[in-house]
């Protein structure tokens, strides 16, 4: 069991949702922020990523241009972005945040991690990558069976089923 939690939106921006395990008090995206906010080495990378996402990505007309495609899932930041505090860092940008678009202007942010291998399936990001894939597949399943739907006009996820509705911020699945 898990819940989809509303996280952020601004006027003319994308709407960001995240996912939360039933057994957890915090969402995957909050976990990601918590891990790197005060990280000795990667706090500046998180700041750069947050600026990239919340100053550029969420207002971009073609946000898919600003993500990198890692198999069935997307990741932020997109191609071409290097870590400004350490531009000679071998693996370009050191952090990955996994995400996917589940409706027009509606994105889910999962967890992420430190990029330590050439592919998302390997290294320190692999747990977060496979977890994101699993959630994406469950979310797709619930969308297909009509548990909830993406409302393009309001850029919100809505459900008509009372048993799934906790409050405006949460859809229990």
């Amino acid at each position: 069991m898990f819940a989809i939690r509303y996280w952020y939106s601004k006027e003319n921006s994308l709407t960001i949702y995240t996912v939360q395990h039933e057994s957890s008090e915090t969402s995957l995206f909050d976990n990601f922020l918590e891990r790197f906010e005060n990280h000795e080495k990667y706090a500046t990378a998180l700041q750069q990523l947050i600026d990239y996402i919340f100053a550029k990505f969420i207002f971009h007309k073609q946000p898919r241009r600003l993500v990198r495609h890692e198999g069935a899932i997307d990741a932020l930041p997109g191609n071409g972005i290097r870590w400004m505090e350490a531009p000679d860092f071998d693996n370009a940008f050191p952090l990955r945040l996994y995400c996917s678009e589940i409706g027009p202007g509606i994105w889910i942010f999962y967890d992420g991690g430190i990029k330590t291998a050439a592919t998302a399936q390997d290294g320190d990001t692999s747990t977060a990558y496979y977890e994101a894939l699993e959630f994406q597949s469950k979310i797709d399943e619930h969308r297909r069976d009509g548990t909830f739907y993406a409302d393009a006009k309001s850029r919100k996820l809505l459900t008509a089923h009372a048993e799934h509705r906790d409050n405006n911020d949460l859809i229990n699945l």
Partner: protein
Amino acid sequence: MTAQEQRIQKLLDKTPQHVKEYNAFMVDLIDLIEDRLEELGWSRKNLSEHLDKRPSEITKWLSGNHNLTLASLFKLQGALGIPLVTTALESYHHSQQTVSRSIKVYAPNKPVREITFTNVSSATVSMKSVYKNAK
């Protein structure tokens, strides 16, 4: 402000200005390259052929796994045929360029008149100057 907004704002406040400017520059650059490729109907493979490079090298250039040098940017600029690199001096000269604008004036019971403004220092012509010239 929600707790999430506060959290994001706190991180944005900590981000140095040069990092914000770098992100903005890179997003503009990505858009310029992607828009131009779409306009030309080129794939990245076509671009690599025009640059006489291996497709894998172009992927590396555009993927972030390579620190793009000014020389690479000028090569890209040449192949795509659009400016990707503009110096501060060029921007300054551009802002000083004079342009001329023509505006049609529609007034009740009067024939339509066209007024041309010259030596306009930007693309904007104020309504005040239109009114002054239309009288």
